[in-house]
């Protein structure tokens, strides 16, 4: 019974993951085409590390910068969607374990989710 519930939960989660990846890939592809259209003839220098522009380093920065005229920001938005996909997976697992009333795993999953949110939104 328990395992059956787990299996069904996993199938739902895996579909969610695949959808997230495909959506992210579509946004990155659109941003990429537009990036080549606008910046195709520029010569990038990736030999020396300068770090990505400050606006593309935070969630709020990327969301503010992303618009059809700013193609690198659209790519970055797609990459952000991709990073959020496994985090959404953990959040759904948390809900699944809560529905199964499995206190131990609600706790364990919450720890994983907290670590992921700290990484993405924490002060560093």
């Amino acid at each position, binding site marked *: 019974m328990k395992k059956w519930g787990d299996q069904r939960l996993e199938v739902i989660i895996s579909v969610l*993951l695949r959808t997230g990846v495909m959506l992210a890939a579509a946004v990155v592809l659109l941003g990429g085409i537009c990036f080549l259209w606008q910046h195709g*003839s520029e010569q990038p220098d*990736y030999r020396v590390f300068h770090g990505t522009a400050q606006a593309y380093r935070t969630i709020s920065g990327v969301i503010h910068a992303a618009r059809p005229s700013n193609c690198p920001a659209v790519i970055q938005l797609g990459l952000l969607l991709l990073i959020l996909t496994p985090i959404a997976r953990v959040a759904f697992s948390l809900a699944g374990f809560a529905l199964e009333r499995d206190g131990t795993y609600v706790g364990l999953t919450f720890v994983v989710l907290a670590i992921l949110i700290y990484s993405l939104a924490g002060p560093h």
Partner: protein
Amino acid sequence: MTNLEFTPLVFCISAVAGCLGALTGLGGGVVVTPALTLLLGVDIRYAIGASLVSVIATSSGAAAAFVREGYSNIRIGMFLEIATTLGALFGAFLATRTPTSILSVIFGLVLLHAAWQSSRGQKGNGDGRQSDPLARRLKLNGSYPGPDGPREYQVSHVKTGFSMMFGAGTLSGLLGIGSGALKVIAMDQAMHVPFKVSTTTSNFMIGVTAAASAGIYLSRGYIEPGIAMPVMLGVLAGSLVGARQLIGAKVRVLRWIFAGVVGVMAVEMIVTGVGGKL
């Protein structure tokens, strides 16, 4: 080189890496970074940022196929993800403080291990017969579909496996790789989880582990849209093609080619690192 030349070139390299990675089961990320740094002279920090993003894409994209087969164990995965995500955070912080020459040498050593693993082929050790009281408390024991109905298995050495997973997470965050091979070793050889359960659960965990260091990489400016875009799309396209070709007799030959390529890259990464050219 202009963007119009750079992007398709990186896409093709990444597609080949993704295809080989899916065919051999070692993941594409481990080949993309040395290819970008050695062939195109890209700074290793941009390369590991792009590679990490592609790792999330392939892990999450492939999960659907594996989960349907009913092998992966979500409880083992979630419990061990505490160790891998903590390790990944630690590794990502470490990466920002480690000189690139040392990163290059460590990467070379990991590649040497991958080459050795690939030439040897993967064998399962986990028999799933020993049990650990902790495994019972955490409900880690499970079952998977066998030829004659579900097969029960038990999990042992939970603490050892957990510590090894911290190490796997650290390497993942330090080098922007999935470190799937190490995750499989921790589950299969330390915890005696059946091999198929180990590989599918590992694949499931890779994306979450990578997401834990991706936040740090993003805030440090390692994720550069111009590089991450062709790498992510290329590795994803390559791995989708590779996953479909899995049924074939030439996998043995491919493993040897892969081992050879990775071995050469390993030596070059170590030489460049020691020479301080990166």
